[in-house]
């Protein structure tokens, strides 16, 4: 069954125990000036970062686990009863019996729940009853380019003498599904947590780049999007993922490419709602219905969840006039502009 994005948003409001874990956020931003600076400027600035990391490190480590069963990976506990976020390629086949190892070496029975092949997110549940150390998960999209973060994991597998390994770095780039950082990763780290400076999980280690200081983590947003399906031990494929959700037929009428600030309009169809709203090539759409556009997929899904005649509010940067204007646009009927094709649905939204 395919779920629409709006449906997921409603689901996330339900008081499900495990969803609460991913929505909890009580901590405050770190106060030191270095976290507002473009770069640390002095040893004192660096020490402030060190102190901030240390203030949350022990709690972060206590919740970080080694996951054994499909080789050795890492993960992080996010609820007292032992729900574990990890990478999809670490949790593996849903239902498979695996083991979760706490940092003191305690080996617990666990079960793989679902995973997303699209985002490489995965869920594992500790099946032995107990109260486990856990950490909060940051709300989606609370981490930004340039933010200081730290990575924890079991590179090379569990090693009690060595313990968990820390790496400190910055966010290089973030898209809907992926955070890129300069935290160094290697085999065994996969599935381990990326933390913000107040110790909330903001990502899960997923892939490495050929360059040592450029690695990739799954975002919280990617986890949230596929949450109910993963919890139900499903494998979410790229086709199920929100990049290709069911269209409701709303139509804007632009050609566009991704842009650091949102999506850049490269063409406007004549007589389309976009043309009526006086959108022009060169304009940038930064928000749809108050949601910040991080990449094309998100834009696509936010438009696609509306039907013909429904209104969306766009925030745009006009190439010629400047400013960040709010425009209300009534979407047209896609079928009237583009005759529906037979066969597979094209990916464009």
């Amino acid at each position, binding site marked *: 069954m395919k779920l629409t994005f709006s449906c997921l948003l409603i689901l996330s409001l339900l008081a499900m125990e495990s969803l609460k874990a991913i929505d909890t956020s009580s901590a405050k931003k770190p106060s030191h000036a270095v976290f507002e600076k473009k770069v640390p400027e*002095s040893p004192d600035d660096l020490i402030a970062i060190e102190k901030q990391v240390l203030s949350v490190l022990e709690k972060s480590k206590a919740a970080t686990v080694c996951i054994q069963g499909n080789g050795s990976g890492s993960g992080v506990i996010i609820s007292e009863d032992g729900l574990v976020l990890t990478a999809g390629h670490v949790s593996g086949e849903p239902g498979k019996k695996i083991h979760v190892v706490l940092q003191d070496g305690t080996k617990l029975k666990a079960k793989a729940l679902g995973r997303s092949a699209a985002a490489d997110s995965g869920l594992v549940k500790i099946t032995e009853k107990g109260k486990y150390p856990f950490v909060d998960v940051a709300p989606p999209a609370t981490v930004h380019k340039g933010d200081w973060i730290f990575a924890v994991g079991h590179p090379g597998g569990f090693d009690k003498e060595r313990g*968990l390994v820390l*790496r400190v770095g910055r966010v290089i780039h973030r898209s809907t599904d992926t955070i890129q950082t300069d935290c160094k990763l290697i085999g065994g780290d996969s599935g381990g947590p990326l933390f913000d400076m107040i110790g909330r999980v903001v990502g899960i280690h997923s892939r490495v780049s050929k360059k040592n*200081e450029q690695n990739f983590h799954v975002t919280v947003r990617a986890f949230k999007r596929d949450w109910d399906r993963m919890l139900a031990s499903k494998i979410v494929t790229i086709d199920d993922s929100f990049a290709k959700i069911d269209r409701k037929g709303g139509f804007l009428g632009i050609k566009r490419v991704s842009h650091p600030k949102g999506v850049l309009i490269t063409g406007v169809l004549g007589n389309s709602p976009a043309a009526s709203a006086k959108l022009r090539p060169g304009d940038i759409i930064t928000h749809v219905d108050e949601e910040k556009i991080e990449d094309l997929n998100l834009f696509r899904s936010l438009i696609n969840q509306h039907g013909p005649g429904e209104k969306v509010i766009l925030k745009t940067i006009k190439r010629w006039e400047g400013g960040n204007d709010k425009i209300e646009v009534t979407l047209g009927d896609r079928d009237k502009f583009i005759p529906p094709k037979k066969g597979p649905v094209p990916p464009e939204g």
Partner: protein
Amino acid sequence: MKQLVQIKVVALILPLLAASEALGQDFLDELPKSRRLNGESTILAFGAAGASAKDSTLTVLSNGKAIALATVLDPEGHAVTKASELEGMEELSALSPNGDEINMSLISSDQKTDLTLMKVEPGTGTPVRWGDLENVHQGTWVGSMNHEAEKLMIGVVSAKRRSIGGRSGVLGVLLDPNDDPKELGVAIMQFGPNSPAQKEGMRQGDLVIRVEDKEIKSRKDISEEIKKFAPTEEVRLKILRGEEGIPFKVTLNYMSNVFDMLDRNQRMSGLTSKRKAGFSDVLQHEIPLSPTAMGGPLMNLKGLAIGVNIARSDRVTTFALPSLLVKETVEKLKAQNQGNN
């Protein structure tokens, strides 16, 4: 399943190797390189401690090519560097902190720590000021010079201080996992890359029946015997080929030289030190140094050397010997040298 001798095979989950990002330019929507952890702007925050690192670091050259760094110890021109990087290297010279090429000589080295005491012209560089490890913990900022002492790089102490076992050399053979412990001899199934046993003329199917004076019945017998020898040491073996017993002498290789190419994590780590194990006490940090940048001081933010880098181990791991161990070893090497004179 075939199993490697003397190497714990840990099946690891590998992050998928993402597409090459090898573009030098900044992408519009990425954090500029200068502002990243090891970006030009960020490392300026290391301040005077960065300058201290530079002033106390020498580069060791072989035929004009940088092979290691060294830490300046005193005004007499003593310095320490990583011994195993200098093995078999010819035409050694050094670069002073201000880039002048100078003469150097080796005094003596210590197998246990892999440190070599060397000497350059008196007054070269600034003698390092040692710091203790009292306030050093996981998360402590550290900085060291990278290859040819060209650039300061920073990171944090990343794991527990500990010993790293497994100093022994290897034969570079894969042995029959189905050996019968009651029967004499274990068959060689395959050779690893750069296998010293293969180099000496051993063949697939040869039965190892004796290592030194020990009769071999199982793989464990072999590994227990080989474990007693360091890399570059010679071991006597006896092979049964058909009916014929053949004696061999094999110079053991570094485990890294043979098995790194079979280890996925090592393959994705780029170049690492050939000796990265067999240390009684190390600090682990995350600075992504080149294996040619071992031997230089590991500085804290106060500009005090809390250790000397001794091994680039993998993509996320560099080891440094703690300052106290370095100081003790240097004193020992100096005393030995005076004894010799």
